[in-house]
């Protein structure tokens, strides 16, 4: 009986654990593949140890992809955070209009990112797309949105912002609504100004919620795939060739399996490292916010 009791939680977890192997096994297998020169051209691969990583780190294509990925992730996460918090603050004021609009806030978030990218692709078509038509009277017509390097990167970040700003806004709004009232009442009694209250009370207490949003958005944008795939496929040139798209081209299109996986392993290591640092920081921020209340 005692043994059964001790074993009970394990028994309940075993099925989930087995399914978890569904990801651990291919992950381990992928890691193992990267030690070989496994490709369609070489179905009987030789062990090359870390050669794939050595090649990768000396290739300009890799460093370009790494740069584009960081640019994309930082840009998307930054805009989404600022815009999301702003939208949440505006909705928190709760005007009749705000109450109506709040109901549709999550709409873009529920559309598959790839579908969102398709929608934007249709709108951004030069000369036939609606964006071009709307901007023409402002003298901004004829912009090749997705056909110039800067435009393509900007457009893909814009799609990311369109899809995921509501995510940050929803989190920040939940945060705002859960803030305790007493510090604000005390500040009002003391005659604190609106800006002072925002800087010294609202923002520090809201920060943990915002951090959760930043962590999720930054981690997710580092491994962006679907939006870029549907919008630009990495082009023009290599201007939007983020790491996962490069990995896809190498592994699936060119069938250089090991080399393609090496790209994703490097990306995984970076994401894992960034997650560890950010989550530790979140812990500190949460403690500090708890002190502020």
């Amino acid at each position, binding site marked *: 009986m005692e043994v059964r009791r001790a074993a009970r939680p394990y028994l309940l977890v075993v099925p989930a654990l087995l399914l978890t192997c569904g990801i651990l096994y*291919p992950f381990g297998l992928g890691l193992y593949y990267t030690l070989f020169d496994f490709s369609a051209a070489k179905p009987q691969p030789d062990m090359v140890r870390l050669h794939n990583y050595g090649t990768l780190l000396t290739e300009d294509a890799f460093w370009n992809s790494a740069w584009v990925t960081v640019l994309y992730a930082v840009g998307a996460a930054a805009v989404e955070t600022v815009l999301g918090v702003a939208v949440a603050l505006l909705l928190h004021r709760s005007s009749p209009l705000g109450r109506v609009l709040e109901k549709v806030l999550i709409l873009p978030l*529920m559309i598959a990112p*790839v579908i969102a990218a398709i929608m934007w692709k249709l709108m951004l078509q030069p000369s036939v797309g609606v964006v071009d038509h709307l901007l023409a009277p402002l003298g901004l017509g004829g912009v090749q949105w997705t056909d110039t390097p800067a435009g393509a990167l900007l457009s893909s970040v814009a799609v990311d912002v369109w899809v995921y700003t509501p995510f940050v806004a929803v989190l920040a709004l939940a945060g705002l609504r859960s803030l305790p009232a007493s510090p604000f009442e005390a500040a009002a009694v003391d005659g604190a100004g609106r800006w002072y209250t925002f800087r010294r009370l609202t923002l520090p207490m809201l920060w943990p919620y915002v951090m959760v949003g930043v962590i999720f958005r930054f981690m997710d944008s580092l*491994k962006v795939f679907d939006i870029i795939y549907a919008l630009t496929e990495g082009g023009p040139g290599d201007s939007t060739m983020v790491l996962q798209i490069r990995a896809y081209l190498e592994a699936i299109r060119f069938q250089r399996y090991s080399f393609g996986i090496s790209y994703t392993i490097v990306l995984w290591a970076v994401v894992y490292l960034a997650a560890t640092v950010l989550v530790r920081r979140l812990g500190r921020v949460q403690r500090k916010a708890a002190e502020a209340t």
Partner: protein
Amino acid sequence: MSARERLAGWLADAALLLYFLFALFPVAWMVVLSLKPSDQLFSTYFSFTPTLDSYRTVLGDGGGVPFTRFFLNSLVVSVGAVALSLLVGLPAAYASARWRFRGSEHLMFTLLSFRFAPELTVIIPLFVLYQELGLFDTYVGMVWVLQLVTLPLVVWIMRSYFADLTPELEQAALLDGYSRTQAFLRVALPLVGPGIAAVSLLAFIFAWNNFVFPLILTSHDAQTVTVGALSFLGGDRPRYDLTAAAALVSAVPPLLLALTIQRYLVRGLSLGAVKS
């Protein structure tokens, strides 16, 4: 209310309106595009005679693209992945909320860490593996990979629901002569019913919206709408009207579900990191 406050209120509303214009316009524009006759797609921008032709084509023969098949495929594999995740995820979530046991935190973190792993790392080996095992382009193969997305979601969110439940309720059931299993099934599970409903719908949305897994691990038989919707843009002549209709049709299930679980969304989206 002072004049200054009223002005601030108007400015806030104007700023909100501007953001929501940006947020809602693409969807509205897809509706417009999908209703335009194909010969008027680019000519007269804001005046046209609406027609349902593009929907008829997309939901009919699809102009050579088996769109309805893709739609049904999405339904089957998404429901399958959610069912499988609930079956194994609920007991695991319950165990980790009720008992602290060796390795429990590690296991939970491992499950969560998949949220941060690049999909392609596992897909490429799975692609090779699936070719060998005959799982490529099958329902079983798709359910198996989509479960990688839905299971962590179910475990993490349900864990916080179970943790909010006081253990006294089940202890009372045990005193009444229930077995531990009966206490779980008849007392704990019904109490977190709303949570289960919310997490199921959310997991369904995540599975439905996934793109990378079906892109690489299916070709036709098990291909889903997210990949299928791109088909109308390919080929010699991209069909913008059909693409717009397909995009809207494939967004309908997640949108409908989202509206029904709106209240529970925050906890779900943040994997329980923010309770609401």
